[in-house]
């Protein structure tokens, strides 16, 4: 089923998951699996007097990206923060397992992550869903499947979603996208405002935001906040996808050890970027996408196959 379709220039950040799927994929190419009319919803939310969604906030299916056959999953970040519940998690899990086990299915999976992590009301099921998904992604990658994370929505990719993103073959992120484990508010609540002032937007974006992630090598491509932007960036990373093996993990061990040594003493993002050799790190904040991409492409730590 199609939502009111968005094309080309329309923003990714403000779009619904459904709009992102139809906006990203080639027009008319999308077939949904277990769509909303199937009413496969959360059995747990009514216990908390919370409304459920017909698709439990995840859209899965198959389509084409510039003519390439893909499987796709998109989280609706506006529904329960895009969180992993039993059903929403199982839908993504099934999709990745399908690619893993069936060579006649598309061997590219696009994960449009927009999630604050595990759904509290279904915490144990959500946590398990992430664990099972991470295992399935690794197994799929071993079988030659390319799993690409696209991050750019309001909920970011936090908690289990942040770990899921970092299990994928490649990560695409926009300026508005954020990836992390504990969100700024959680850190502020637990450790105090001196540790992390969650109201300081610039601080939040320089910590978890797309520009930082791209520059330090926590994301592999930087996308403009539009359907075209994500399509171009996804296409770019699909050209070269690292295999998942001992060599890759050893390289990642080296990369992460070097990063800890190089940047571990930095107090803020600007000092990290300066340490990476960026001449005018203060200018990063207002840099446009083209300039950020050019800058990132020149940083050794930002361009690697070690994921």
């Amino acid at each position, binding site marked *: 089923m199609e939502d009111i379709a968005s094309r080309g220039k329309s923003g990714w950040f403000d779009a619904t998951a459904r709009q992102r799927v139809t906006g990203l994929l080639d027009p008319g190419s999308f077939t949904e699996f277990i769509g909303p009319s199937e009413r496969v919803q959360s059995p747990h939310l009514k216990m908390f007097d919370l409304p459920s969604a*017909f698709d439990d906030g995840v859209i899965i299916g198959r389509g084409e990206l510039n003519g390439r056959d893909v499987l796709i999953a998109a989280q609706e970040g506006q529904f329960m923060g895009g969180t992993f519940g039993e059903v929403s998690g199982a839908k993504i899990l099934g999709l990745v397992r399908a690619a893993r086990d069936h060579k006649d299915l598309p061997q590219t999976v696009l994960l449009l992550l927009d999630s604050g992590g595990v759904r509290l009301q279904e915490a144990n099921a959500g946590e398990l869903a992430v664990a099972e998904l991470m295992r399935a992604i690794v197994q799929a990658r071993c079988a030659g499947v390319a799993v690409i994370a696209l991050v750019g929505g309001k909920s970011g990719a936090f908690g289990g979603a942040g770990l899921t993103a970092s299990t994928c073959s490649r990560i695409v992120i926009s300026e508005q996208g954020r990836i992390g484990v504990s969100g700024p508010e959680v850190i502020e609540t637990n450790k105090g405002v001196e540790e992390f002032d969650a109201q300081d937007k610039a601080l939040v974006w320089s910590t978890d935001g797309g520009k930082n992630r791209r520059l330090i090598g926590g994301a592999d491509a930087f996308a403009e906040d539009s359907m075209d932007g994500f399509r171009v960036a996804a296409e770019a990373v699909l050209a070269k996808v690292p295999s998942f093996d001992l060599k890759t993990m050893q390289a990642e061990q080296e990369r992460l050890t070097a990063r800890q040594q190089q940047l571990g003493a930095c107090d803020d993002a600007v000092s990290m970027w300066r340490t990476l050799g960026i001449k005018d790190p203060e200018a990063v904040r207002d840099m446009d996408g083209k300039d950020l991409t050019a800058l990132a492409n020149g940083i050794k730590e930002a361009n690697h196959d070690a994921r």
Partner: protein
Amino acid sequence: MQMLSFKHTARSRLPGKKDKAIIGVVASGNLEVLLERVIPGAECEVAIATPLTGYDETWEAVIADFVERFSPGGLRISINDGGARPDTVYLRLMQGSALMEAD
């Protein structure tokens, strides 16, 4: 959670070829509307799941008004409400109806 349902006889069946459509998101101040062309004749059924109590009459009025203006005969309309205002409900119903009228 509160479950409400309303049955109406519209003036005529809703034109168009789409057999189902979905619009909106379950979020604060928003709602999701699923429309399915599954009911015979010009009948129309609306089922609503909402976390707010005490608005039965408002729902009834909005639905009745929508049926009168847009004649959604043949449609089963299912709503998951996140606590939307009546004008947002009306907007989604109109958007949904427009989707169903598409070729």
